[in-house]
């Protein structure tokens, strides 16, 4: 285990706890929500820290890699886009200067460059298994290839699912087979079995989250718009990217809280943001 990574990851997690605690003291309802939202992120981080300390397996993966499977299999995972973005809280603006020093063309996606920086800067823990992302853009698949340039990442098993471009029945069958293969790979590498009944439960919970997400987005068509633009992104993270909330009832409760707040704003015809003049 890389002690520097552990130290940095703990710093990032502490920063999240601190922000969450500060927001919890605010009387504003949205701050109260954000406190719980950031606490959920920190909770996921704590599980990764525990894995690193105890030598337990954990994954690096993505929201688009069927994360419900990880919940169903009780696998711990993280996405390096989070430490990439949060590293600025620990390192300050020098993160951007360091990122620019990486010999990757500056016209390539900033997030991918920041993620490489999080690897180089020892902010992203080397997982036991990497489930690579091959969608939605060219860069993401190649980012995973690039990870093989780094010590530690070079030697870990990589699973990947090839995404079809089409959305017809043949494409669904193709991707279904890819997901099954990935799940089999995870079972073999972690020794944890995928219980399909448990997966169904997780999907039921996950579907509730998705239904509320649709409802939430529909309400944002109202004038005045009841919530600011970034609130929708929070549901995206809760439903797909934060391991402690994906397919968990705690995630559903969080989204419900956000939706309830939005509905109240709609009923009171209040705007969730103020136009700056």
């Amino acid at each position, binding site marked *: 285990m890389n002690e520097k990574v552990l130290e940095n990851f703990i710093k990032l997690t502490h920063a999240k706890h601190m922000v969450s605690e500060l927001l919890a003291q605010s009387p504003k309802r949205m701050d109260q929500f954000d406190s719980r939202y950031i606490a959920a992120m920190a909770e996921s981080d704590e599980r990764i820290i525990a894995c690193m300390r105890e030598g337990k397996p954990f994954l690096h993966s993505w929201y688009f890699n069927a994360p419900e499977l990880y919940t169903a299999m009780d696998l711990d995972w993280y996405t390096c886009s989070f430490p990439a973005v949060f590293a600025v809280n620990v390192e300050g603006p020098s993160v951007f200067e360091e990122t620019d020093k*990486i*010999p*990757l*063309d500056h*016209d*390539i*996606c900033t997030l991918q460059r920041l993620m490489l920086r999080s690897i180089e800067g020892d902010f992203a823990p080397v997982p036991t298994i990497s489930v690579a992302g*091959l969608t939605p*853009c*060219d*860069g993401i*698949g*190649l*980012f*995973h*290839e*690039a990870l*093989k*340039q780094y010590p530690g990442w070079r030697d870990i098993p990589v699973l*990947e699912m*090839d*995404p*079809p*471009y*089409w959305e017809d029945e*043949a*494409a669904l069958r*193709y991707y279904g*087979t*890819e997901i099954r*293969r990935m799940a089999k790979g995870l079972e073999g590498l972690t020794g944890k079995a995928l219980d399909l009944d448990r997966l169904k439960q997780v999907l039921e919970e996950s579907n509730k989250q998705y239904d509320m997400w649709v409802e939430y987005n529909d309400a944002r068509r109202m004038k005045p718009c009841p919530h600011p633009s970034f609130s929708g992104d929070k549901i995206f993270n809760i439903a797909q990217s934060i391991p402690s909330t994906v397919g968990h009832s705690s995630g559903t409760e969080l989204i419900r809280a956000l939706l309830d707040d939005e509905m109240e704003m709609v009923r009171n015809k209040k705007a969730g943001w103020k136009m700056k003049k």
Partner: protein
Amino acid sequence: MRDTVDKDAIVNKFMTAAGRLVNDEMQEWLNRGGRIIGTYCSYVPEEIIAAAGFMPFRMRAVGSDSTELSDVYLTHLNCSFVRHSLNMALKGEYGFLDGVVTTTCCDHARRLFDNFARKESFPFIGMLNVPKRNTEFQVEWFYQELLKFKQAIEKQFHLTISKDRIKEAISIQNESRRLQKQLFLLRTDKNPPITGTEALAASVSATAMPASKFNALLKVLLKELPTSGGRKNYRARLLILGGILDNPQYIKLIEDQGALVAADSLCFGSRLFWENVDENEEDPLKAIARYHIVDRPSCPHLLDAREKHIAFIMDLVDQFQIDGIIMERINFCDNWGFERFMLRNTLKEKGIPFLSMDREYLLGGTGQMKTRVQAFLETLEGDL
């Protein structure tokens, strides 16, 4: 004396064809009522198009001088080849085409497809989903894609593409590949009878003429070219690595600084003809699928095949006694941007000098480019 004239005439024909959108052989094909389908990527199987009776034409934006129309649909963050090509389509400069086919090989090409589909720019618009992995499962997927592609052409143009016609087309394309490889291998010689500029012009011409016509020309050229006694006194032997470089003038600019471009790994270069489609496979579409997903040197889109591509480059370095590599890339290309990032470590480990050059699709910034190439050559001379 006549031999020399023929040789020069053919080389000039290739240089002219590479510098124009419509060359004489293509015009002759059109005049005889021949039809053409444009292809945007080397993963589009020319054999299926040829078997349907069309001439496959690899899309270029040669002659474009602006992107004023395409800028409405694409942004300055899109690949300049795609922007110029869409602009030419919107101006009607591809009016000689009956259709175009793109692939999913890059983000920008996919947007090109979206725009063509929305504008209904051509009677036939197709896109092939090229997988990113290269196992047997992906070969099967691509095979199904080829079947759908074949059926789409049959339906659109009310024709039938027989297995025998596809096998015949494979045979002709394989002959073209063998001949091009033979020409390419001439540059393993210390004093090759052909330059990198001329070699690229030949391989670009191969994508812009009826294959049988091109093969006939190249056979004559190969017969008349000596195997040695060509270019002498060059400063270094270079390999050019990258994507859709279709302009021999780019190579000429490098060679004018005293280099010999002895080899390449380009979308219009050696990756097109290094391997052949298996002619013994009972199902020719299966053979084409396997060729593209497993057998041929791949581009960075195919992630599982990276090690193989590196091995391919290293073989070229050895076989062609390469002194240094120029890695070219069109701005905003993630595929080649990441490939360059990864390859630089490999090249450093192996002690192979390299130069990274960004470019736009149209040849520009030549002064700066000359200076950088000269400096690179001076570095190499210091090492030699």
